[in-house]
């Protein structure tokens, strides 16, 4: 009974985080913000839902499988977010109009995508 309540609570929470990510995805004004919001919220939500399954089946094999999935997600989700954000920056996906700064501007070498670490480069 207690596990059942625990499962329900976790499941509910997980679904809520996912819903949050989805709402964020729709509402956020620019791409980088959308990436920011979704990747983590969803990862957390999924983690919780999977944990429910592990609790429910209460089987070592399944628990280890769930752990493996979570591990994969933690490993891949941020990398995917990073790749997409970076690529989007290359193709000039604009930032929200209220953004306060862009330290990355002008740091990429055109064509090769070499990124410099200089604090101040020629601003244009």
């Amino acid at each position: 009974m207690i596990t059942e309540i625990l499962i329900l609570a976790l499941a509910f929470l997980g679904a809520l985080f996912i819903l949050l990510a989805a709402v964020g995805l729709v509402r956020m004004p620019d791409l980088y913000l959308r990436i920011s919001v979704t990747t983590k919220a969803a990862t957390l939500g999924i983690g919780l839902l999977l944990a429910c399954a592990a609790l429910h089946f209460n089987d070592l094999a399944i628990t280890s499988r769930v752990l493996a999935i979570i591990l994969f997600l933690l490993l891949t989700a941020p990398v995917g977010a990073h790749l997409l954000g970076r690529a989007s920056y290359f193709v000039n996906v604009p930032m929200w109009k209220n953004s306060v700064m862009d330290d990355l501007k002008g740091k990429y070498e055109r064509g090769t995508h070499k990124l410099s670490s200089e604090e101040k480069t020629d601003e244009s």
Partner: protein
Amino acid sequence: MNLLLTFVWAALTGNFDYENFLFGFLLSFGIMWLISRSSGDTRYFTLVLKVLAFIGFFIKELVKANLEVAYDVITPRFHMTPGIVRIPLEANTKLEITFLANLISLTPGTLSLDVSDDQKVLYVHSMYIADKEEFIRSIKDGFEKRLLAILR
């Protein structure tokens, strides 16, 4: 690494028998042999356990930040001040940088965009940059410091 993979194998099959471990060991040995030829450094996962511990800490952070963002998402007006920030790095190995960057990405509201080619600077997109210096410090003192403590 080999042991880790063996462990993962056992976990996957859900069978911690002696034979299964042996088979998993042989299998991951084979895979390691296949792979290690290309990448030079072999100083991997001796710190596996520390990493797992760190993950525990991280989940706490994750939930906290999530709530923060959730508030902004749900409320009708946006309170955010987003932007891209240049963060100089103390971490210098690839593994350290990758870990740091991924953890930053996983934390809500921040996203690692890229690492400079000389591996000295990390560019991060963040939702809340009230004060740039303050933000940089929170990253360096929070994540980077803890992470390096574990990894070094």
